[in-house]
């Protein structure tokens, strides 16, 4: 009986420590949640050819940055805005010279088909609109972008009290889908994924803040070489095609708008 | 005193097999004692009358009002009646008084007077406390009172509402012996002054004799005899009742002869003359019941006296019980007498003393054997 208990504990401890895949490398990517579907597809293709394994942690860029600062083991940081990556760079957590702004995106207002109609941002001031979901401006780039935009067009003071902060841009999408909020700000790429919401208004690129997705290798990356390979793949034509397919703007190829 | 106020017939089953079957119990005004040994079901019967417990089937009526009716048959379900305790207009005093521990004496007593205006309530409470000698205790809490005081507060609480019926469960049992004896007399006076129909449960024979006008004897959950107290206690209808009412001498005897309404009974080596009464003509074997109080002891043999039965007796033992002495005699059969201490000393009784025991014929009760 004692032997049985000891072997169970030993086995559990071993599982804790031993890597599952011993010959190939595992690359850990901390990426903005709006990249979820596209990156998963790209990674699936990459794993077939390279033999490496890609593990993702999708969350709001701010959340990820905090985790990295706290020492979470990650190889790559793929954020949805420059400020989050800037913060890490200031703290010396990035591998120098590896940073590159890869993608852009468009901001949209989404609603559910049965909700109050919104045609222009000013409609958000309508009394019938009671809750507007925005990413929490402290940690979600999409929320910050939306706030900056609303301030720019002078609508922010009127709608500020209606804002429901959400932990990520996907949480905003979910809130709108559930019907518990009347409208929300997400990326065009997120709206495209969802079948339950419709795009009520697309923020013109001229008025929108500059949306940019920086990709960087972390200084303390456990698997720097394998990570660099994957980063190179993300910049390749195959990957770019997938990004475009999901609706992202690929910065390196598209002219700056 | 014989106008029937309560009629009750019901049965109640308990898990474990015990059962209470009450048939045609009729209780009049005045003080009725529910009498029986511990476990005979007296308290349960009382609680059923109060509405604190529900029989499985039967009927309980008070005056013309049906307090409880339940038929065992499913068909008659619609006619089932249960009047809750609060609508029966009763005053209930349980054995441990159940005074509300978080209320003062005044709070306890006025609890039942909610429907009266405040001024009248206060007056009634004071009046009742006064009558029971509880002045000055209005603001005490129950735990600060003596046993006797608690009993009176419980009584005050029950009677302040001028109930139609007063129910007392072993009112003196929670008190120590000297208090109990002292309060017995007081209680009797109080109850007589109140003049309410009262049902009182006790297992103590002397309490029943002291307090009750009528008695209902319960044995094993069944009512076996009811009637006026002196009647039931001197004429138990069967052996069970005789044993419950604790008739001291119960011996088996044989009827030798019956003539002119008198029966000659052979008991042990002695011959007794008793009233034939309602003995069935063919009765042969009987139990002979003689209460110890009915035995007179004398020294001199030659004095003529009225009792038909003069027996030569030898003292076997003397048992002191407070101010009384129980004298166990051999008269040809074991006979027990009850004497006062002074009487015992006057007769200079001790083991072995020879004397005469006298028992009046009417005080010998014959119970035919029940086979």
């Amino acid at each position, binding site marked *: 009986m004692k032997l049985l208990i000891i072997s169970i504990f030993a086995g559990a401890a071993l599982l804790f420590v031993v890597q599952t895949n011993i010959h190939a490398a595992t690359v850990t990517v901390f990426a903005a949640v709006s990249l979820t579907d596209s990156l998963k597809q790209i990674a699936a293709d990459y794993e077939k050819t390279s033999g490496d394994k890609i593990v993702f942690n999708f969350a709001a860029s*701010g*959340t990820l940055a*905090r985790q990295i*600062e706290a020492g979470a083991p990650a190889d790559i940081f793929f954020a949805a805005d420059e400020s989050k990556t800037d913060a890490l760079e200031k703290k010396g957590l990035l591998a120098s010279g590896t940073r590159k702004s890869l993608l852009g995106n468009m901001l949209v207002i989404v609603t559910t088909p049965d909700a109050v109609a919104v045609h222009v941002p000013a409609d958000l001031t309508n009394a019938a609109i*009671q*809750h507007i979901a925005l990413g*929490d401006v*402290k*940690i979600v780039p999409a929320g910050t972008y939306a706030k900056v935009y609303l301030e720019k067009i002078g609508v922010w003071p009127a709608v500020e009290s209606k*804002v*429901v*902060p*959400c*932990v990520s841009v996907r949480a905003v999408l979910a809130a709108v889908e*559930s*019907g*518990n*909020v009347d409208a929300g700000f997400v990326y065009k790429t997120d709206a495209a994924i969802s079948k339950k919401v419709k795009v009520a208004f697309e923020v013109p690129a001229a008025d929108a803040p500059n949306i940019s997705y920086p990709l960087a290798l972390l200084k303390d990356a456990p698997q720097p070489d394998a990570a660099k390979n994957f980063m190179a793949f993300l910049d390749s034509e195959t990957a770019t095609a997938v990004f475009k397919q999901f609706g992202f703007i690929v910065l390196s190829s598209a002219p700056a708008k | 005193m014989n106008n029937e106020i309560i009629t009750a017939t019901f049965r109640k089953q308990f898990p474990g097999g015990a059962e209470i079957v009450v048939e045609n119990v009729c209780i009049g005004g005045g003080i009725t004692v529910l009498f029986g040994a511990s476990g005979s079901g007296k308290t349960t019967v009382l609680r059923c009358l*109060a*509405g*604190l417990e529900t029989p499985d089937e039967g009927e309980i009526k008070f005056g013309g009002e049906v307090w409880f009716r339940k038929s065992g048959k499913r068909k008659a379900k619609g006619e089932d009646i249960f009047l*809750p*305790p*609060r609508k*029966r207009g*009763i*005053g*209930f005093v*349980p054995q*441990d008084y*159940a005074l*509300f*521990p*978080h209320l003062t004496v005044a709070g306890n007593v006025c*609890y*039942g007077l*909610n*429907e009266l205006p405040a001024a009248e309530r206060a007056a009634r409470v004071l009046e009742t406390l006064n009558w029971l000698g509880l002045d000055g205790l209005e603001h005490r809490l129950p735990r600060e009172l003596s046993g006797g005081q608690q009993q009176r507060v419980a009584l005050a*609480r*029950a009677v302040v*509402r001028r109930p139609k019926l007063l129910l007392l469960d072993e009112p003196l049992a929670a008190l120590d012996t000297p208090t109990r004896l002292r309060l017995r007399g007081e209680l009797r006076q109080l109850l007589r002054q109140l003049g309410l129909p009262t049902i009182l449960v006790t297992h103590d024979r002397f309490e029943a004799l002291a307090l009750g006008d009528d008695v209902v004897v319960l044995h094993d959950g069944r009512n076996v005899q009811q009637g006026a107290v002196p009647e039931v206690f001197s004429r138990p209808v069967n052996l069970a009742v005789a044993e419950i009412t604790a008739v001291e001498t119960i011996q088996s005897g044989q009827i030798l002869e019956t003539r002119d309404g008198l029966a000659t009974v052979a008991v042990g080596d002695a011959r007794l003359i008793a009233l034939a009464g309602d003995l069935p003509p063919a009765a042969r074997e009987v139990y002979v019941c003689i209460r110890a109080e009915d035995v007179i002891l004398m020294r001199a043999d030659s004095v003529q006296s009225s009792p038909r039965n003069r027996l030569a007796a030898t003292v076997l033992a003397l048992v002191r019980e407070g101010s009384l002495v129980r004298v166990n005699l051999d008269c040809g059969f074991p006979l027990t007498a009850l004497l006062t201490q002074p009487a015992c000393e006057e007769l200079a009784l001790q083991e072995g003393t020879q004397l005469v025991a006298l028992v009046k014929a009417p005080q010998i009760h014959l119970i035919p054997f029940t086979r």
Partner: protein
Amino acid sequence: MSGAEWQLVGFSLRMALASLLLVLPVGLALAWWLARKHWRGKAVVETLVSLPLVLPPVVTGLVLLQLFGRRGPVGSWLHNIFNCDVVFTWRAVVIALAAMSLPLFVRAARTAFEEVDVKFEQLARTLGAGEWRVFFTITLPLAKRGVLAGTLLAFARALGEFGATIMVAGNIPGRTTTLPVAIYAAVQNGEDAHAWTLAGVSAVIAFAAVFVSENLLRRRK
């Protein structure tokens, strides 16, 4: 502590007190039923009432979200008839706090009622008291300590509630952000000093509430 932090504490306290207004009547009724009555399916009710104690709070939050969301059975009725929203408003906070603290209260109150000897209630009935009067003048006063202890426990639990609250009320500063939610968000945003300050306040209140509650329970009768 800053003004905003005090406001946050004030808001949390107000929400916890408001949740007590829901918990007390429902909890007293449930506790009394469970203590005094027996019926088929009583075990099911007992289990349901105890569930929020054992389930992950987020699961309770999920259930509440389904019920009170604009598309849910209760939420849609409220939205359509009264134009009243629950999710993402202070009402959701109160409901979440109440749902999570109810089991604690019911357990304590039930035990307190079970310890009140029925003989007092029965006697009160013979004196003409109806069931409501018996409850308020006899049962409840005699169960006072246990019920009070339960109330304090429920209050402390409500103040510390996180999982269900964040699911159904979100984190809207000034409107639904409670103390625990604010602590979580502060950690998320790297505002460590702020987080520790709030955590300290939270700990002090919880300690006080549980301390008094335990004392009450110990000195029963």
